[in-house]
């Protein structure tokens, strides 16, 4: 099983939110609505939606990074024109959200939300700031590893994916129940981006590569 289970008591909020009953597998599989997906176009994106460092008058604080990779299906084919949305904490580990009580500074030059469409190779690219780790109240001394949230649409609604991209070498992986909820260590590692010198731009920003593979649907090959 690649995905985490719904119920993972180490992540406390799953206890009252995980479905209690067995999920139903429709005998005919997904229907034609579920096997298609909404369509998004470039006209729906702001000009600088892909560059989270240029959405405000000044430079955000922190370590500027380039995050790029491809959205693929399991056969390695690019998923083109897919809407990829990202959101994240700022360099101090604080979200621009009223509910975030972490006593770390907000950055007036950083909102932390971006979006783009994949190109003909299935590639997405964002310029942003490396997010900070932050505490949460799941358990004593609970800290989230630095991460960027990703939301991706594929070619079928059943492929819809929301996940998190992590950074290599983070010492918090072993202590984080959200990361650890993924049963297989190799699957967990697929959420860790790869530092990439070829993506890194001199005098400007470090580069990270991270590919996203969307799930099959049972009737995909019809």
């Amino acid at each position: 099983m690649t995905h985490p289970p719904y119920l993972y008591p180490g992540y406390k909020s799953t206890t009252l939110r995980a479905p209690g009953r067995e999920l139903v597998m429709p005998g005919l599989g997904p229907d034609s609505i579920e096997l298609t997906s909404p369509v998004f176009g470039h006209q729906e994106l702001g000009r600088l939606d892909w560059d989270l460092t240029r959405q405000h008058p000044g430079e955000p604080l922190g370590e500027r990074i380039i995050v790029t990779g491809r959205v693929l299906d399991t056969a390695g084919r690019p998923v083109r024109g897919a809407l990829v949305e990202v959101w994240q904490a700022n360099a101090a580990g604080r979200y621009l959200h009223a509910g975030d009580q972490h006593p770390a500074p907000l950055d007036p030059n950083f909102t932390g939300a971006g979006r783009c469409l994949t190109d003909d190779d299935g590639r997405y690219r964002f310029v942003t700031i490396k997010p900070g780790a932050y505490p949460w109240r799941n358990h004593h001394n609970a800290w989230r590893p630095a991460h960027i949230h990703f939301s991706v649409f594929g070619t079928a609604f059943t492929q819809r994916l929301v996940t998190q991209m992590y950074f290599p070498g983070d010492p918090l992986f072993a202590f984080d129940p959200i990361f650890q909820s993924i049963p297989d260590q190799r699957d967990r590692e697929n959420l860790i981006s790869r530092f990439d010198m070829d993506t890194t731009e001199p005098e400007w920003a470090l580069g990270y590569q991270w590919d996203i593979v969307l799930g099959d649907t049972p009737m995909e090959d019809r």
Partner: protein
Amino acid sequence: MTESTPLRPSPVTPSQTVGPFFGYALPYGEGPRVVPDWRPDAVRVRGTVYDGAGEPIPDALVEIWQADENGEIPRRPGGRVRDGHGFSGFGRCATDPAGGYWFSTVKPGAVGGHAPYVSVLVFARGLLKPVFTRLYFPEDEAAHAADPLLGELPDERRGTLIAERTAEREYRFDVRMQGDRETVFLVF
């Protein structure tokens, strides 16, 4: 420092929770308004997402995807920016502090052998992967009898997929994560 993710095709990327702090990134102004309210055939769908203690979930995100009123699957862009005409079939609404969501849309026509339905996807803090369900309409009783999914469900659970009509062109569809009236969730 060059290990992990190879560039060759790899296994499916695991899901992770949407978390509590997506509110400034994923919801957008026209998200719930799949069609404008002024369309004569617009319907309003409202509901609440409840947890296993019966408490509303204020940090859930509900998405819908559906055919148009003729049962055609939309292929035109416009899920984020809408011109008020045309129909893109996609809607997104974050729950409010009382766990409520709403959509303004049209009732879809039937597609294939199914009774008309709206595909519903719910993300939330505490959900490590989203739940899929379907919203069917109460006035289609005859079509429900022949619907391949509804026909498979035990009587006592079928009702969780059928919205309640609350007024002319208004429906209520609550999502319950657990409990006696737990919504039927689908796995494909």
